[in-house]
Each structure stands twice: as structure tokens, then as C-alpha cells.
């Protein structure tokens, strides 16, 4: 299974929480026991000392096949099936909208951003993409061809319904 950026972010957050808790929580315990009992925490920096530069890991290949992926749950923002490195996405310019805007979607044959992106928080429709939906990568992420860093126990909603139906039958 391929891991997502979300997975990576999750791992990072977990390690960060672990790192913080291992510093904060055992304040009453003596230093030696902390060293012995604390789990070996590894951050993105690895075990490199703070004053040393670490060799950055090799960047995994970005999935670039332009094939739509299945959504794991109905509300999931679709993942980006192509490379978006070096795409400018800032106050001045939004590269994604070169193909995904209403105007260009036909020529580019790219899925146009859905109508919800043109709605403001009060549900009113705007002529342009709403500012709160402007930064695409807040929700939509590209995919890396890499192994998952942690085990994923996610269960699809269809599977959940099936299970609950089976339980009800019993």
C-alpha cells in the first residue's frame, strides 16, 4: 500500500507529541530512569545532534499518472494524481486554477473545482473561488510512491456498514 502525505504528517505529529511528553511528563522522575524507560524517540531529524546537519532523505517519487483515485470516505477531498512541485500557489497566483478553474477545465480536461468552492461561509455563491478555498493544498494532497511509515487501520465506511449489518443479524 502506498502511504499518503497525511500519513507522514501524522507520524511527524505523533513523534512530536511523544517527544514533548517525554520531556514534560517525567519531571518528577530522576534523570537516569527517564533515560532507561523512555521510548527511543526518533524525529524527522533522526538521532542527529542539534548542532549537526543531517543528510536529507531521498525524495520519494511523486505519483504522476493522472488517474483518479477512489475516495476513502465521501467527504474526502480528492487526492492530486499528478506532480505539483514548483506550482506557484500564493496571493499572487494559483497555478492549479490554470486547468481546474471553470473556464479552462474543458480545454485541459481536468476536473473543475466543485461548486462548493465558490460558496462563502454563509452559503452564498461568489463569482470566483472563495478565499477560504483558495489554497488548494490545504485539503488536496499529492501522493508519494513510498511505503507507509506506520500501520494504517482505517476501515472504509462501506465495510463498517457491512459489519454493523452482520452484527444486527446475529
Amino acid at each position: 500500500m502506498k502511504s499518503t502525505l497525511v500519513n507522514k504528517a501524522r507520524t511527524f505529529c505523533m513523534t512530536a507529541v511523544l517527544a514533548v511528553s517525554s520531556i514534560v511528563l517525567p519531571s518528577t522522575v530522576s534523570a537516569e530512569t527517564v533515560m532507561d524507560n523512555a521510548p527511543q524517540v526518533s524525529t524527522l531529524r533522526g538521532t542527529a545532534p542539534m548542532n549537526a546537519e543531517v543528510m536529507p532523505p531521498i525524495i520519494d517519487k511523486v505519483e504522476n499518472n493522472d488517474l483518479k483515485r477512489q475516495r476513502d470516505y465521501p467527504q474526502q477531498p480528492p487526492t492530486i494524481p499528478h506532480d505539483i512541485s514548483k506550482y506557484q500557489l500564493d496571493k499572487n497566483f494559483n497555478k492549479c486554477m490554470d486547468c481546474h478553474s471553470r473556464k479552462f477545465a474543458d480545454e485541459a480536461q481536468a476536473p473543475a473545482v466543485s461548486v462548493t468552492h465558490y460558496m462563502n461561509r454563509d452559503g452564498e455563491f461568489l463569482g470566483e473561488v472563495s478565499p477560504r478555498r483558495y489554497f488548494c493544498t490545504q485539503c488536496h494532497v499529492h501522493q508519494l510512491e513510498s511505503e507507509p511509515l506506520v500501520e494504517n487501520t482505517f476501515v472504509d465506511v462501506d465495510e463498517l456498514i457491512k459489519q454493523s449489518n452482520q452484527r444486527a443479524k446475529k
Partner: protein
Amino acid sequence: MKKIIHLLMLGWTILSKPAVHLSLGFLTISGFIAGVIFWGGFNTAMELTNTEEFCTSCHEMRDNPFMELQTTIHYSNRSGVRAICSDCHVPHNWSDKIARKMQASKEVWGKLFGTIDTREKFEAHRLQLAQNEWTRLKANDSLECRNCHQFDSMDFTRQSKRAAKQHSSALANGEKTCIDCHKGIAHKLPNMEGVREGTSPH
């Protein structure tokens, strides 16, 4: 006025007289050598203004476009082949180069009067500066891109599907040129509001 005309006449009589003491051979050879030195010196001086050190010796260029270039593939990449300012901004062809260098005198003016000497001023001029370059590259069919990127050597099978599609159609039939789609690849784009096409590949 009379004095000037008199001086000119005097100069002409000196120049038009055949040499009395110097041999024709000496004059020819020394003229040839002087020509080589002048021509070589001229071109060397012009090449000096084509170096990255020269371009980034002003803070305007060093702090804005050069900083932005450094995060792009034209500066840092896996094989280490890179472009310097003049590779994209100065034509390689000699006569075109001279024309561009003469135009660049306006940039000296800008430097003297501090047209873009702060970040704010640079941002305010960014659209205009960018459009100058887009217009130039559009007019010369992206000549500076093509100095390195040969269309005939493009292997579409090694490109992504979308890239191959665009390159084998719109670029191949001359409908589009590199800059039509590849804007903002070496520097950040200005505020593109109102610039309809953007970097759109269609």
C-alpha cells in the same frame, strides 16, 4: 564656429596626407594588431556584463530575481547543469546581443534613479518587468529557451502524459511557444489578476 571648422580642416589635411616616415607595412600590421586588441577588448568587456557576478553585483538583482532563481530547477537540479541570468535574458546571437545591450542602458538609468531599489518597489514593478520579458520571448519564439532545449531532441515518451500531449501538438505545430505555458518557472509570478492567460497551457 570658424575655429572648429579650421581645426577640422587641419585634421583632415593631416589624415589625408600619405605617411612620410612610416612604411605601409608598419601601418597595415599595426592597424591589424590595434584592431584585434580593440575588437577583443570590446567583446571581453561585453562578455563581462554577461556574467552572473556582474548581474548580482547590484542588490536589486541579487536580492530579488537571483534569490528566487535559486529554488528553481534552472539553478539546482540532479545533474548540475544550470542557467545563469544571461542564458535566458541575453540573446546569444551577436547582433541581437548588441541590440539587447543597448536596450539595457535603460536599466542603468533605473539603477541610477533607484526605480526598484526596495523590495516594495520591485514588487510594484514586477508585473511590468515580467511582461517585458514575456513579450520579448514571445516575439523571438522563446529563442533563449531553445538555445538549450532543442525541440528535435525532446523524447515525448520520457515526458509525462500531459506534457507529451502539449509538446507534440501545440508546440510542434508552432501554435504555442515555450513561454506561453512556462511562465514563472525561474522567478515568482506577479499578481496575475487580469492577465487572463496566466501560464495556461491552452
